[in-house]
Every structure is written in C-alpha cells, then in structure tokens.
C-alpha cells in the first residue's frame, strides 16, 4: 500500500517533469496546429490525472483496510535483500558494459558467464570454469564468426600487433 503511494507520487512528479520537458521542445513552422510538443504534453496531463487517481484510490483502500495496509511490515526487510540481489544482475550487466571495450568480447563474456553463475548460487569449481570457457568460445563462434557481428576486440589486437 505504501509502495503504491510512493509509486503514485513519483509518477505524479514525473508527469510534471515530463510536461516541462515537452514545453522545452523547439517549435517548428513545419508542424501543423499540433506541434512536436502536443502529444507529449497530453500524455503528461493524462499521466498526472491517472497518477492522482491512483494515489486517491490507494488512500481510499488504506482508509478502508488499515490493518491490511500495515500488515507484512516485518516481511519488508527480507524483500529488500531480494531486491538488492535482483539489482545485482544489473550491476553485473553494467560491469560487462564497462569492461568489454577494453578486455574484448571473448574474455568479457566468459567473465559474465562466470559471474552470473556464481552470483546465482553456483560454487566456484573446475566445472564452472569449463562452462565459462566453453561458453565464451561458443558465443564468440556464434556471434563473431557465424553472425559476423563486429563485437569489440579490446586491446588484444594492439597487443598482438
């Protein structure tokens, strides 16, 4: 319930920010009666109205069932650690994003496979290492050789000369 209230408030703020962002869109003489800012502004207003309605709905529900609204507070701390675990996957993805231009695709994808597997509960072992190595070779062959995708090579070409 509280989550809904916070979400609704954030959406309302976002709608205001979006409206101002739309207002800053340059005007063009090529536009008709409704310019490039027309639909964005309408969407911002619609979102604002819906968010306000969502907040009102949540407040009504909280007033009608306050016991249920307060229930489960103890469970929230456990959920928070699950949220953090989930966002850890994004951190791993960002790490890949940062490293791949330097280390090259093959090495970085191997590190990604290794990291994701360990992060999700697999213990470090020779089998896991083999999975990461074979996986990186398989991905390299599939994407770089077969599909001809010019994935970053990193510093290796310069090193090899």
């Amino acid at each position: 319930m509280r989550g809904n209230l916070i979400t609704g408030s954030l959406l309302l703020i976002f709608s205001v920010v979006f409206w101002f962002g739309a207002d800053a869109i340059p005007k063009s003489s090529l536009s008709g009666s409704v310019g490039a800012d027309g639909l964005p502004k309408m969407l911002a207003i619609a979102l604002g109205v819906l968010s306000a309605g969502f907040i009102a709905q949540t407040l009504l529900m909280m007033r009608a069932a306050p016991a249920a609204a307060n229930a489960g507070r103890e469970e929230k701390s456990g959920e928070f650690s699950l949220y953090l675990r989930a966002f850890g996957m994004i951190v791993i993805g960002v790490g890949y994003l940062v490293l791949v231009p330097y280390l090259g695709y093959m090495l970085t994808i191997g590190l990604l496979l290794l990291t994701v597997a360990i992060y999700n509960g697999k213990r470090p072992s020779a089998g896991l290492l083999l999975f990461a190595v074979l996986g990186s070779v398989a991905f390299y062959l599939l994407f770089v050789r077969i599909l001809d995708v010019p994935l970053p090579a990193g510093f290796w070409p310069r090193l090899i000369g």
Partner: protein
Amino acid sequence: MEGLYYGWQAVTSMPVLLAAIGGVTWGILGGALPGISPSIAMALLLPFTYNLPPLVAVVLLAAVYVGAEYGGSIPAILIRTPGTNSAAATVIDGYEMQRQGRGGEALGLSLVGGTIGGLFGLILLSTLTEPLASLALYFTPPAYFALGILGISIIGSLSEGALLKGLIAGILGMMIATVGTDPISGVSRFTFGNPNLLEGIHFILVMLGIFAVAELMMQAGEDRWTEGTKPDAQSARLRLPSIATLWRLRRAQAIGCVLGAIEGAIPGGGGSVASFLSYNEARRWSKEPEKFGKGSEEGVIAPETANNVVSATAIVPTLSFGIPGSNSTAILLGGFLIHGLQPGPMLFTTNPEIVYGLFGGLFTANILMFLIGAVILGPCIWLVKRPKPYLMAAIFGLVVSGVYAIDHSLFDLGVVLGAGVVGFVMRKFGFPTLPLILGLVLGYMIESNYRRALLITNGDHMVFLQDGVSLGLLACAALIIGMSAIREIRRLRNPVNLEEAAAQ
C-alpha cells in the same frame, strides 16, 4: 490462388524451412524451461532477425511461439512445473498421469492435441485475416488513431483487474515512443543532446529489457525455478495416441479448438485463459467428469489443443489491424516493423508473399512441431535438469550479445538494462507490462495519425467525432474504460473485497 502459390513457395523454400526448424526447436526448448515464456524466447531472437529476409524473420518468430506452447507442457507433465503459463492447466491431469506411470501417454496427447489445435487455428487465421483486414480499408487517419487508443484501452483495462495501473503503463509506453526525432517536423525530443537517441528508443531494446532482463532479475531475487524430481526414464518415453483414442477424445479437442479460437482473437485473452476454460468445459461436457484431476486424458488434450489454437488465432488482430493482443504477438509485430512492414490491409496488396508465406511457414512449423517434438524429449529433460545458474548465465549472455547485433552500440545495452529495471519495478508493484509495450509499439501510429488528421482539417479536433469509424472506436474505448472503472469502484466499496485487494 495467389495466396496458395505464395504459401506453397514458403513451404518449399529452404530458408523458411530452416527458420521453422530453428524456431520450433528453440521454442520447444525455451518453453520447456520454467521462467522462459514464449515472449521471452521470441524476444531473445528479435535482434537476430534484423539481418534476415522479412519472411524468414516472421516465420522464425511465429515458429518459436508455436513450439513454446508444446514445450511448456513437458515440465508440466514430468515435474509438475509448467514451462509456460498456458501449460498450467495441463499440470492437473498431466502430472497425475506421470505419477501413474503414464507420462509418455500424456506427452503424446499434448503433442498430437497441440498439432491438431495449431492446424485448426491456422485454418482460421488464413480465412479470417483478409476479410477483417479489408474492413480496415475504410479506416482514415482519425480511425487509426482511435484504433490505437482502443487497443491500449482494452489491454489496459484487462490487465490483472488493475485499470489505473494498466492505463498508466500504456501512457508510459507512449511517452517512451516520443523520444527521438519528431516524425512530422523533424525536431528532436527528449534526446538531451545525445545522438544515440535521435532515432528514438528501439522497441526491441525495451522488449528485451522488460521481458528477458526483468525476468532474470526476478529469478535472481526468487527461487522460482525448480530442478524438480528426476523424471522416471521409462515413463518419459513419448507414446503417441492411437486414432481410436483420438476419436474417443474428439469432444475435448473440439472444445479446445472453439475456446482457443475465441480467446486467441480477443486482445488480452491468450493461452492460459483458453487452456483453463477448455479444461473446465471439457470436464463439464465429459462422460467421465469424475476422472478429471485423477489422470484424465481429456484433461490433458483439451487445454493443450486450446493453447496451440491460440498461437495462430492471436495473430489475427495483429495481422488484420496491426494491434497485438499479447506479449508474443507484440514481439511478432516488432518483427514486421523491423523490416518496414506495417500489418493491416495494405500488407495483403503490397506484400502478399509475406502474409501467405507466413501462413505456409506456420503450416510447416506445426508439422515440424509434431516431428521435432517426438524426438526432442531427451534434450528437453536434460535442459530442465540443468542448474539454474548456468541457464541464467547463458540467457544473460544471449541478451548482451544479441543487443549489440542490432546497431553495434553499447549504448543500446545500457537502454536494455534500464528497461530491465523498469520492468522489474513494474512487476514488483503489480503494473502490467503489456500495455507499456503496446504504447511503445503503437505510439508512433497513434501520434502520426492524430497529427495527420489535424493537418487535413487544419486543427479541427471534431474530425475524431465526425468520422463514423473513429467515433465508434473511441466510444468502445470509453465504454471499456468506463465499465472497468465501475468494477473497480464497486470493488473499493465492498469492504470484504477491499481487504483482499489491500493485502495484494
């Protein structure tokens, strides 16, 4: 005749055949993995379709959808865990048959029922799509604008009974669609000086993030995947039903066909609704209803027939009007749009080889599903038993690699990760994601037709009410939203229901 010619060409074309084989195989394997829905399996392949010929690309995606509907029944029967939502009804009697040592029979019923359902759905798809699409020839820009609004309204109001959340998600999707260069005047919007955003945010990136990355985040935060008990090797051998058995089960199959056809064509319907409805109706009309829940063959074949009918009929509104009614058809629509193909009536005249070729490809895919399904059981069981961390790592690897294949840009990967966060937060807070995807995919169509209509009438908004089709569609949208709002208000006023809702 022309349609038959294009269909035959597709059936006998090697690239289309390979796409169908690859799509069905990937679909069965992906569908067999709990947590990988048909839409995620399709989304993972989207970047690969970029460089494929248009027909091959859409057949590949559609074949994945077909294969996944069968694949989901494998773990449902063997380890009581549906691989896809549509296979949830199959668990009831399918797993019971497995416990009785008749798992192979259940798998055979699922495979044959699914093939029959898929072919029946294909007949409906090929006969209904063109007449419906020809209705859209009467559509003017105001009507197309209204159609887009109606599509989002329907999906928003059907989404898990949370009207406001569904509509908010749709609006957010349309907001994302405004990023980039304005299609009419050419000015840049919400690009913040970043040249990577000038072409807007590609819907593939958002789909990959919302479906695949968000699911990986959910998996990391929960223990939803089960490796389950080891399936008994003997009962895991596929046993195809005899003709006599199929004839005996004809009523259950017919129920699956009818309900699958209806639910598939309704936006927001889908395989899971169709399969449960079919299960219930098959039990109601069965001569042996007491057997349901105890290993009834009808309890397996009815839902499995239904969910494969849906895989074809769900494509009807997508092809006819360009309005997808489910996550999977939204991705299929994405496959069309990537290749510059706009589903609708014009597609039948400008690119008939694509439409009829798709029908031919789907025919091939359904036949291949039967053939491949008969032999792929072993690899499926092996895959289901793999440790979850390995599977998650492989899928994440596919996502980060596939994204780069689109535009060779690491910025796109950042967008996918951001969309993944959005998708995760939406799911955690109970916001449906399909309206957001629809808003994103339809946003351009809605805005361009809205402004085109106003350009024609010099800014007179009355055109949306003066055009009969537009007025009708907008009235339908208002009615749907109004009825959903009344339901929500009644729910709020009822104290008993309020506590249940507050506890959600």
